[in-house]
């Protein structure tokens, strides 16, 4: 089984990379993009029977820095 983890900067934390992407889209003629937030996706290959709670602990202890990032776990 797999877990897919989406890690994003929290709302209120400036995302200069997202802002640079938004700026580039605008200069390429893509109008109407109000904001861009850039995050990352981490996929874990897990032993059968692994639980979302275990993945949550991995996120809290390593995969996300909860001072600045939020995460969402998808078990697939």
């Amino acid at each position, binding site marked *: 089984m797999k877990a897919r983890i989406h890690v994003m900067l929290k709302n209120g*934390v*400036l995302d200069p990379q997202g802002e640079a992407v938004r700026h580039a889209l605008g200069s390429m003629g893509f109008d109407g993009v109000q904001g861009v937030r850039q995050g990352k996706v981490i996929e874990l290959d897990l032993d059968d029977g692994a639980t979302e709670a275990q993945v949550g602990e991995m996120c809290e202890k390593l995969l996300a820095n909860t001072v*600045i990032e939020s995460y969402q776990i998808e078990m697939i």
Partner: protein
Amino acid sequence: MKAAVIVFPGSNCDRDLAVAFEAAGADVTMVWHKDSALPQGVDIVGIPGGFSFGDYLRCGAIAARSPICQAVVAHADRGGYAMGICNGFQVLTETGVLPGALLRNAGLKYICKTVGLKVETSSSAFTEGYNAGDTVNIPIAHHDGNYFADDETIARLKGEDRVAFTYTDNPNGSISDIAGILSENRRVLGMMPHPERAADFGHGGTDGAALFRALTGALAPA
């Protein structure tokens, strides 16, 4: 004073930091990241700049979970002295020894230049060689030096006189121009600028040397 300098794969300021400690009169031991204990009797642990573990995942994240960092956290919890410079500051925030986090520079560029720092407090073993309000010139070299913490944390740092240095001309977007902070007991310093790169006449400036001299003075055996 006995100093230990931690070496991670990707550290590149470890020897510079050791030289600066030695020039101030310290005995220095280099400690590999896989070691799980600090040498006996260490007074201060230095976590150097560089790109530990290639900055993978987040700057300092993987180093902060290495065996030696557990010993560093225990040392700090016991009231031991530690300082993290640049990547070392990132490591200390990732361990939770210091609050906040270092984000990508607001201008997105890696910045390598000498900047002006205002000494915000002389009340620590690291900064007592300066006068509060002094301006010193120290180099920075980082891509992720944009200090961030929530409003409550920033208010606390200021209220408790724990901001050690601010930038005179903010290069990276750090909240409140913060360049370096102290722990609650004032025995752990984290800073993005590199005092060890301004500690010898050959460096073109020696404003960082007072930090190492003050430390050896404060931590000399009684």
